[in-house]
């Protein structure tokens, strides 16, 4: 339980909580980015360099920007009607809290019996070799999925021609 962990955890939690509670959508996305950077920091802290940098590249470089574009295109930043009945909000938060409690309970009882941690070797090269050897099929599948998602997203978001329907 190092200081670094505490700082990063704090940043992540604050960022994510802000992302879920702020009123302005752009602020939400920006704080989400902050939270994700904090999470990437946690990955680095866990010696998973490759995953950490990939996290930044994908989430900050792509997903956040994509969300920004979506916000701008749906004028989400302009409309600020967050007037939900309090009962809905409370029930939602209660359920989330319940889930957290259950998970925490599970952790307290389940898994704290692991041995001493080994310093893992996660050289980028090893990851690459693993991706190309034992995980080559999932890699191909994910490539196909991403291609399909790229095309599908383009098709869905494309402006419909007037009178085409």
């Amino acid at each position: 339980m190092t200081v670094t962990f505490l700082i990063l955890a704090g940043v992540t939690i604050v960022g994510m909580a802000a992302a879920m509670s702020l009123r302005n959508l752009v602020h939400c996305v920006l704080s989400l980015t902050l939270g994700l950077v904090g999470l990437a920091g946690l990955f680095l802290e866990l010696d998973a360099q490759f995953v950490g940098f990939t996290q930044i590249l994908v989430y900050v470089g792509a997903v956040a920007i994509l969300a920004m574009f979506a916000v701008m295109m749906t004028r989400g930043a302009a409309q600020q009607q967050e007037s939900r009945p309090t009962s809905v909000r409370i029930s939602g938060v209660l359920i989330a809290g319940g889930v957290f409690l259950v998970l925490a309970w599970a952790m307290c009882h389940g898994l704290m019996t692991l041995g001493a941690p080994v310093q893992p070797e996660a050289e980028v090269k090893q990851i690459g070799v693993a991706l190309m050897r034992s995980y080559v099929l999932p890699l191909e599948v994910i490539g196909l999925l991403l291609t399909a998602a790229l095309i599908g997203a383009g098709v869905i978001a494309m402006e419909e021609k007037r009178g085409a329907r």
Partner: protein
Amino acid sequence: MNWIVRNLWLIPMLPMVAAGIIAVTKRKGRMLAASLAIGSMSLSFLLSVWAFAHVVLLRNQGQIDLQVWNFRWFQFGNEWVSLGWILNPLTAVMVVMVTFVGLLIFIYSIGYMAHDENFTRFFGFLALFAAAMLGLIVANSLLLLFMCWEIVGLTSYLLIGFWYSNPRAAAASKKAFLTTRIGDLPFFLGIVWLYSKSGTLLFYNGGTGCLEPMSLEHLVAQRTTIGMCVATGIALLIFCGAVGKSGQFPLHVWLPDAMEGPTPVSALIHAATMVAAGVFLVARVYPLMSAHALVHGAVSTSAALQVVTWVGSITALFGALIAVAQYDIKRILAYSTISQLGYMMMGLGVGGVSVGMFHLITHAFFKSLLFLGAGSVIHGCSGEQDIRRMGGLGKLMPFTFATYAVGMLALCGFPLFFSGFWSKDEILHAAHVWDLSQIPFYMGAFAALLTAFYMARQMYYVFAGSTRLEVGEAHGDGANATAGMEHEHGPVPHESPAVMTVPLMTLAGCTLLLGFLGTPAWPWFQSFLEDTRLRVDFGAFAREGMFPVMISSSLIVFLGLGLGWWFYGREPVDAADAPDHLGRRVPAIFAVLGHAFYMDALYDKTFVRANIAFSRISTWLDRWVWNGAVQIVRYGTLAFAHMDSFIDNHVVNGAFDEGCEGVSRSGQILAKLQTGRVQSYLKVIGVALIVFTALLLWRANA
């Protein structure tokens, strides 16, 4: 095994590949198509020369000169179907001839077809034809031979109908295709019969091939129900194929009509190579043809060969008679081809492979020379084909005239210097010494007389006298080919370009020289084909009636030429519509000959009519008998269906409707939970997660 034997398939495959590439070439790729076709043909020619040299070398070393390369193609049941190729003197001679003549005609075609918009397609077909023809020659399996045989027929169909917008060309191509098919059906039956009897279609396969003694003995030993031996039956069936393809007597009608195709096609396919395929086929299966004699030894000529001889001699005389009274320059040559093919068949029948094949080779050269010359004439006269409208071209087209004269003299069999003399003389001599009958000899001799006569007639009509060409009356095949050149050249006949005259001169040279390979004094060709010792022996002329036959045939030729001069050279034809000099004297006979003995009309009245009547009967049967049965079945089905639908409506559907009602009612109840709001669903999932995890943990702890 020598490289060339293993890779003999390259010879047909190169033009095949070229044809494939040309098939996908755009119409504009004229130069590409021509160069591909000619390039592949040149390579094939080189390979053929190599193969030829290889065989000659083996022969000189005295080694066995029949080499085969067989492989298994596919399996059905326990049987393997094998294919293969063969290299022996017969193959070697034929591939060299076909590739050489083909190459020259390809080159000639560049000039002849220069103005045709389907130039590319033309070369594609030509290359495909060459591939199939070469495949036919190198095939060591009757099956492979038959496949190539059919492709050859197909390309012939395509090329005769090359100008398919011309209805006559379309009809001619159809006629050619159907007529040859009539011959191919018995051929195919013969193949099947042979396979069922001998179990293999390979010609030679180290002792187990169908043309090898073991199999032949087996075939001869068996008898059919009518008492004929099996070998003879099969041989006759195969010969039917040859009759169709080589335009022998009953099935010759397609060949004159095939002249609707472009002239290079006529030269290549319908004079030099394809029609000779029938002759080649008989030569190839000669052991089978002569099997009876081979085994029994006593009788010198087998029944099959007798049939071949008679059919050949009748055809020879028949074609020559008709050719006398034709006016179309290409039709004269076509009937002449029929006649000469008859000669070859006769030669095969009476004298064996070498006699027939020698005439085949020499004929290929001089007849393609004549056709190309005729093409040059047609080209020069802007598409005119009627000899009555030509005249006086000797001065205007000197090269064509000179080469045409060489071809004509060779065809007539002018003594000593022309190849036709030696090969025809060989046949006549063989017929003379035939021990069964003298009639084929006399028929052949008369045909030779007629040949000299009609060729002289044609020469006088076309090249002598004054020009009778009429402007703007062009018709026939050249009309298409030269449609665009009228304004370029004008109506005055002109010499053809070098790309056309050079092949002519090459062929003329060959025509002059080739005969010396097979003179009785130095019969290199015969010895090459039949594996006998070769020596120079001028004494051979004196052998057993050789000299008298030579003298008499020379006299016949001179007589024919003289008659030609008497009728046509003495007083030159001066008007296009003047009646024929011979026709004036014996109009009745001339008309019969001019209509080719009314064979087409006869077929029309008999076979075609019968066919139409039969199809009418078939239609009637179809409409009333078969259709009635179908109707009965239909009503039965309908009745059954009505019964079925009754059960369906009242029994099955009733139960199903009840079930559906239940589902629908329960669905209405459940639909109340379906708010359409994702988040409420998510909430349910969340609660479920809590509950189930809690339960799980509770159980685990308890």
